[in-house]
């Protein structure tokens, strides 16, 4: 149920993001979702890709500081209040969300949101117990 997310440390200087995307492209890796958080000095790029192991190795070899983090890919009804419903479920069980970002999907009735939470396993239980679909790894990489 847990999906591997690649995190890359980027110094805020021109050309770094371009370099990451170039390396991924030349290794035949497709980006499924991404988000960047930054301060004035540095940023962290978070990626969901079709082949996280290859992406990790390729970026590391190119000298980037990379880590793999487990996150959840959650199906959220693509209607007003859809995300609010999921948040309410997690909130009611005291599960803290570190960050989240949306996933680009084609031709699906639902939206996909990536959640990074402190207690992954418990979050899965809680979500599934509330009939919220958490995608498994293979499904996400194949999207």
């Amino acid at each position, binding site marked *: 149920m847990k999906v591997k*997310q690649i995190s890359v*440390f*980027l110094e805020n200087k021109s050309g770094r993001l371009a370099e990451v995307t170039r390396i991924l492209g030349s290794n035949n890796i497709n980006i499924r979702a991404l988000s960047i*958080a930054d*301060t004035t000095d*540095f940023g962290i790029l978070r990626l969901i890709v079709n082949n996280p192991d290859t992406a990790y190795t390729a970026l590391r070899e190119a*000298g980037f*500081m*990379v880590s793999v983090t487990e996150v959840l890919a959650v199906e959220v009804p693509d209607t007003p209040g859809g995300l609010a419903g999921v948040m309410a479920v997690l909130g009611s069980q005291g599960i803290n969300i570190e960050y989240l970002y949306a996933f680009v999907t084609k031709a699906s009735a639902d939206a996909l949101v990536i959640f990074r939470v402190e207690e992954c396993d418990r979050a899965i239980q809680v979500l599934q117990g509330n009939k919220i679909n958490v995608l498994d790894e293979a499904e996400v990489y194949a999207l």
Partner: protein
Amino acid sequence: MIWDREHECMDRESLEKLQLGRLKQLVERLYQRVPHYRHALDARGILPKDIRSLEDLRRMPFTGKDDLRQNYPYGLFAVPLDEVVRLHASSGTTGKPTVVGYTWRDIGTWTELIARIVSQAGVTSADVAQVCFSYGLFTGAFGLHYGLEKVGATVVPSSAGNTDKQIMLMEDFGTTALISTPSYALYLAEAAREAGVEPRELNLKVGLFGGEPWTESMGRQIESMWGIKATDNYGLSEVIGPGVAGECLEGAGLHISEDHFLAEVIDPDTEEPLPYGEKGELVFTTLTKEAFPVLRYRTRDLAILDPEVCACGRTSVRMCKVMGRTDDMLIIRGVNVFPSQIESVLMSIRGIAPHYLLIVDTRGPLNQLEVQVEPDPTVFTGSFRDLEALEASVRRRLQSVLSISARVKLVEPKTLERTAGKSKRIQTA
């Protein structure tokens, strides 16, 4: 005004006679009382009785920061500790500070020397003098404090920091003399303006600035912002602290109190003395100090000596403003810090790689230090919070160990230049 006309305006012949007598006594005392100096003199085959003229000084051994470190804390003291009434310390190049001591008579000498420099800057008993140096181990505040009291000035020991309060005190107490680092004087003027106080409308008329080197143009900037006369003074704790030399109102260099300190300028590489007018490293020998005398102490400060009699009437040799350093010491907001100290702090922090770059930005009123470090890739969790915590811990350690506030910047692994030496590790913005 000339505080001690007899000594400050002494003719050369009398001065040199006085210096020679004191030098002989100094070397005798060092030889009898301080094993380090006895060994150093023995190694050169020099006995105290061999000193017959001031020229013989050039045969004497030098003393350096390393000697102070090796004899930490009291090894170079020439009196027993019960005769020492005060200790001060400055930062050493690594870990341990440099400790210096004063007898009661040394404190009296120091007070007289400061009375000379404040008088030559025009400060009198009519002045209200605000001392914005940190009262503590550094010599700046206590040094100036007693000499200012000696001339009868009203001393406001406001210490360093707390800028808003400094401005309030200046307004309310009618401060006329500002004692600080030159960079703090600029910062204070800007802060006053931001607080709606026009510095030129305050009572201030003169500033005595020291603790860090400053340029003529910085002096003019301070003078125009405050509408004051900015004077420079020089000293270092190993010699006595502030009071070694100070500028008179002629603004033509800093008068060295030569009856207490023998000044030389040497070529830092060959260690040969250089003639007047040539730029080199300042070397001082203390002629009268009891607790912590030094023989040919290498300051690492670069300057030029000028023996011409000054228009003010003082006959002492003048040194120009310090023109630089022979080592890599940095001065960040008046705090001396060596890259080696920063390095040892960085090495003690888990989670960063052993490579760094120091960037000193001298563009603003206060020198800014930026420390660039690479996070250790093996501890990268991908969490923003962890990186911010790492940044904060580096900043805190630099603050608590070295008393410097630095901006810490995390950079990508393996992007900082790898060099064996540290010369490439400092940049100036």
